[in-house]
């Protein structure tokens, strides 16, 4: 079916939060820490400003607990005595003039007595750097399978490699923004966000209000990619505090430099592999150490680490695995959710390690992967037995065929011999991505979706899952209309407003279609069952709904469903053993590059991405997800580099933090294989994050094939490639 999101966006009529008129409201702005660590000695307000015109909020104005509700409650809403990172919010200002409030921010000076900051997550902190527990470790997780030490000792060959990936900025085109107002005794916050109920929980805790006195509404959201998963809770608290103190609506819209500097990014990672293999290339033991830079507060780092570690062994069968990972504190702006959620980092490392193993054994990297890819009935690092009917070898072969991988290798040999300054190469990666929350996460979320019939026979779908460009409105309409045999026009998707929609969980983790879509199907069945005939569909159903409302004046005909784990799945959080995800999607990616030896610039010439995602429910949306994800990953691999000073991003503009433009994107051929997943909507597995996992290691492998250098760190900028040539 056609997309439902498009038309108002194409007419310029979609009202994003910054487009909402604010006739009598105030504009809010944030005064931030200039220092990475220390005690706040004084907050000095310049006498040149008439502060009586301003609403000023600091930590003393917080009615509830001064922390942002999340996994651990360590991140203050506003810094009280001390700061842990540059740009940490300290004071909030509001004024009826947007320009005045932004000028006034520069007239407030936060004076900090500095303490030594911890800035390199790869090094153990000194005694004077400890700020969390006894060792600055936010989370330490170990996954164990078999006996790694014995297997490494016995292995004919042990290969070591160390890999690093950099931070990545989301660059959603719409910056973060929120509006808050007071409606009777209810605080209402509306804005650009992925997780209405995360924001709701943060507001009830931070404002000390009952759940029914806080209302969160999602506005049309101009991209998220994880960047609007946890950070909007911070901004919502700020804008609500200002609105409460002002007694008037307040709007806060970040500009691009503030958004890039002050909000979360993808976790930087350091990963070391020691792999035992036999002389044929079969994996005997994988020992993996992972360190993620968590930044100054815990935020979501433990769960990002968890997903990263579960994917750290790659989509391969190995009997002896130890994956030991930590997320650690630094005095940097906190790192957070970003599409892929830790997996792109660890998959980059394991895929580069596979290439290193192939090189050291003198093997073809394709054959090494073919030999080790998980077969039906084999298990992942957590012991999850894969029996999903997907053919991972076929995914690989399809990618090789579509890309003409072998022919390209021969062609490149001729090309490289004929050109003095240009080098071409082709690289491959194979990967997987678990959909839905990790381990017992979905059980813990206990999501609920609802459908409600309207007296005219139309059906409204009520969930807290939001549209941010991925097509949620379209796919939910499709799922409900197909479930009920109705026309798409008979389905209405409710606005994600916590006063109306149940908590169906956050819009993250590739879970919207697979998990929530399934709940919509079940809620539809529940509604139909209430009419006494479970086979009712289409026009008959519509008529039955109209008749029901004639008989039940004032009543509401609805249906609901709550999440239940697929039968036979089990997960043990303590030992990290069991079924980490309901389902994995599988992918293979081939990338062709050309390196110009004069500039050491790398251009991607061609990409093939093949994936097995259960069932493709909407081809147009699915291809959009893959193409967009591939380009984001190419950006991360080649050009997107955050430059740091004192734990803050200093290239916080799009002129010097570059993302791919239309001129940078290669042809991307996308293909799908399908092995329907019994517990996903219409057989579907998650799709949104998988495409970000594969391209970066394939880009690095292609550069390796082209140049003979060994990229182990991304992004592979021209400067980094020059270091590789120089042997640095």
């Amino acid at each position, binding site marked *: 079916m056609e997309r439902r999101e*498009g038309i108002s*966006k194409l007419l310029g009529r979609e009202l994003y939060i910054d487009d909402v008129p604010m006739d009598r409201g105030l504009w809010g702005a944030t005064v931030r820490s200039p220092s990475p660590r220390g005690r706040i000695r004084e907050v000095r307000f310049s006498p040149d400003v008439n502060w009586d015109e301003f609403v000023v909020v600091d930590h003393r104005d917080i009615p509830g607990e001064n922390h942002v509700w999340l996994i651990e409650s360590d991140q203050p809403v506003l810094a009280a005595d001390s700061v842990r990172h540059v740009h940490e919010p300290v004071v909030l200002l509001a004024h009826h003039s947007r320009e005045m409030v932004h000028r006034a921010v520069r007239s407030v000076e936060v004076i900090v007595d500095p303490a030594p900051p911890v800035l390199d997550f790869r090094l153990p902190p000194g005694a004077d750097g400890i700020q969390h527990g006894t060792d600055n470790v936010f989370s330490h997780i170990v996954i164990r399978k078999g006996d790694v030490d014995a297997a490494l000792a016995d292995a004919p060959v042990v290969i070591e490699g160390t890999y690093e990936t950099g931070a990545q900025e989301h660059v959603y085109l719409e910056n973060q923004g929120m509006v808050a107002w007071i409606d009777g005794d209810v605080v209402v916050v509306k804005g650009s966000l992925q997780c209405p109920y995360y924001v709701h929980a943060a507001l009830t805790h931070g404002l000390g209000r009952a759940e029914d006195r806080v209302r969160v509404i999602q506005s049309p959201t101009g*991209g998220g990619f994880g960047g609007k998963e946890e950070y909007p809770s911070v901004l919502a608290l700020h804008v609500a505090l200002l609105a409460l103190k002002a007694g008037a609506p307040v709007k806060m819209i970040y*500009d*691009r430099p503030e958004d890039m500097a002050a909000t979360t990014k993808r976790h930087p990672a350091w990963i070391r592999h020691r792999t035992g293999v036999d002389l044929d290339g079969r994996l005997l033991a994988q020992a993996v150490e992972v360190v993620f830079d968590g930044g100054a507060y815990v935020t979501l780092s433990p769960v990002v680490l968890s997903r990263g570690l579960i994917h750290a062994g790659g989509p391969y069968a190995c009997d002896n695995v130890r994956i030991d990972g930590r997320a650690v504190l630094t005095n940097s702006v906190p790192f957070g959710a970003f599409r892929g959620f830790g997996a792109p980092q660890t998959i980059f490392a394991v895929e580069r390690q596979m290439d290193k193993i192939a090189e050291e054994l003198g093997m073809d990297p394709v054959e090494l992967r073919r030999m080790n890819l998980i077969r039906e009935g084999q298990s992942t690092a957590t012991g999850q037995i894969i029996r999903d009917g997907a053919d991972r070898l076929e995914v690989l072969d399809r990618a090789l065929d579509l890309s003409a991988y072998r022919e390209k290798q021969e062609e490149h040999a001729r090309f490289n011999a004929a050109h003095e300054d240009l080098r071409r190469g082709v690289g491959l990666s194979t990967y997987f991505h678990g959909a839905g929350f990790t381990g017992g996460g979905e059980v813990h979320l206990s999501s609920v979706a609802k459908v409600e019939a309207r007296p005219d026979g139309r059906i409204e779908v009520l969930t807290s899952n939001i549209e941010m460009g991925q097509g949620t409105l379209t796919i939910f309409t499709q799922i409900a209309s197909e479930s009920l045999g109705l026309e798409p026009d008979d389905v209405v998707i409710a606005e994600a407003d916590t006063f109306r929609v149940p908590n169906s969980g956050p819009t993250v983790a590739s879970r919207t279609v697979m998990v929530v879509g399934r709940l919509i199907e079940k809620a539809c069945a529940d509604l139909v069952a209430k009419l006494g005939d479970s086979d009712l569909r289409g026009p008959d159903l519509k008529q039955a709904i109209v008749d029901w409302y004639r008989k039940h004046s004032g009543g509401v005909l609805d249906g609901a469903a709550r999440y239940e784990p697929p039968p036979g799945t089990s997960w043990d959080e303590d030992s990290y053993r069991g079924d980490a995800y309901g389902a994995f999607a599988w992918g293979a990616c081939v990338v062709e590059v050309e390196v110009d030896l004069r500039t050491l610039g790398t251009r991607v010439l061609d990409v093939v991405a093949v994936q097995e995602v259960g069932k493709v429910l909407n081809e147009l949306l699915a291809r*959009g997800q893959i193409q967009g*994800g591939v380009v984001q990953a190419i950006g991360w691999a080649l050009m997107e580099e955050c430059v740091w000073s004192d734990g803050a991003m200093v290239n916080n503009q799009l002129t010097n933090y570059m993302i791919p433009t239309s001129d940078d994107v290669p042809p991307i051929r996308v293909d799908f294989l399908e092995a329907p997943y019994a517990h996903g909507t219409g057989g579907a597995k998650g799709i949104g994050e998988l495409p970000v996992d594969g391209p970066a290691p394939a880009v690095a492998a292609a550069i390796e094939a082209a140049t003979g250098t060994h990229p182990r760190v991304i992004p592979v900028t021209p400067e980094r490639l020059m270091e590789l040539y120089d042997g640095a």
Partner: protein
Amino acid sequence: MDRYTTATLRVNGQDLQVVFPTHHTLLEVLREECGLTGTKHGCELGECGTCTVLVDGEPVLSCLALTAEMEGRSIETVEGLQDGNELHPLQAAFADLGAAQCGYCTPGMLMTATALLAENDDPSADEIRTALAGNLCRCTGYHKIIEAVEWAAGVVRGDAGAGPAREVLFGSSVPGEGS
């Protein structure tokens, strides 16, 4: 302390008299004084292209253009693309191909593409790619946008069979295609 300027702007074919702080950009005045919020704030530094409008037919970054210099010039925004109830061919093609995902870059993309098609109604994919290179998009990976512009170009020049082949849009030989 702010000085104000009064000017008549010709926006989407209509003359609008507006009073605005003299230092305000065309982006600010379009959004705040004219109520035309289709043109987006993306960076206000001329880096992202979301604020692109046409001035006398040329694409201009409205975040860098001073409104005071716009008197007497013809300004076109996304709100003016539609002809009555008829979508502009670019809007129709963007809708059909799903080229507007989150939609935030879309108005700027549409305006840049409009200027391109006015100059060249049969652009190659490379020409489209180059023309759009100043408009960032983070959702689509650009392919659907480039294909939509190719398609719309065909419609504009009256080539009924115009548009990329299905293989181009959806890839080649897909077994068990989705609906």
